[in-house]
């Protein structure tokens, strides 16, 4: 499955809904999207991963890159994910300590910072 990306605003947050596979093949597309958003001044980003079917290390690298880019602007990058097989990947890599991970978009949007 290809990567699908769609973006919308909720208050000062920008929600990026990601579907399909974030992997070594598609991750560059996600990277470009995140770079575009940050360069356009969207500094509070919520990546909704509920429809992600596959995530690999390159995808994780791009998410970390996004996190660093928004932080450099005093922004935030939050993830929405309840899928156990995706959460497991964050756990194994220790990246659950790096990203705020929420159960719903609403929760992520109302989170501080």
């Amino acid at each position, binding site marked *: 499955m290809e990567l699908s990306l769609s973006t919308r605003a909720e208050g000062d947050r920008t929600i990026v809904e990601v579907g399909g596979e974030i992997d070594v093949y598609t991750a560059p597309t996600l990277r470009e999207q995140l770079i575009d958003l940050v360069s356009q001044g969207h500094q509070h980003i919520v990546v909704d991963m509920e429809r992600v079917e596959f995530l*690999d*290390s*390159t995808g994780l690298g791009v998410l970390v*890159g996004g996190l*660093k880019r928004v932080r*450099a602007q005093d922004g935030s990058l939050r993830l929405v994910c309840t899928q156990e097989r995706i959460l497991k990947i964050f756990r194994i890599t*220790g990246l659950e300590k790096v990203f705020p991970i929420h159960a719903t978009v609403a929760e992520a949007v109302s989170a501080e910072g």
Partner: protein
Amino acid sequence: MATVRLEISPTPAHVRTARLVAAAVARRSGIDEVLLDEIRLAVGEACSRAVGLHRMHSPQTLVHVELTDGPRFTVVVTDAVPRDLAPTELGLTGAMPDPVALVAASAAGTGSAEDAEIAEDSIAAGVGLALLAGLVDDLDVVSAPHGVGTAVRMSWPLTPPAAPVRGAVRPFL
């Protein structure tokens, strides 16, 4: 004991080819369905590593993937990059890379777009190794049996006896 060998030119698209083949062969070998995600991910990580190395050092040669479905489901991903160019231990024997430290460390640099991409890629590489080590119980990294390069060997148990051979044989061709 059925075997599939796959050789891919080093492109990200063919990391997918390898994942697809690994999942298809694993499924057909009668592996426990719950292991499929893990196999797909681990094979993808081993191939991403090998493809990355080939693109830098040996873009004209193919990455080898061998799948064997007995007695365990075994996948060996072999690169052809001289071991002095590739980190041979893959960080798998020492302490796990600490992702928080990785993220923090990669914050250094001039902050240019290129720096950021390089930082992402090195994080991805570290995280890829962490995934391999964390996912695969039976993981080995050895010198490639023939010639230069490194072989990453992974295996998973086949719980039920290997599926009986089905299908037609053609006596007259």
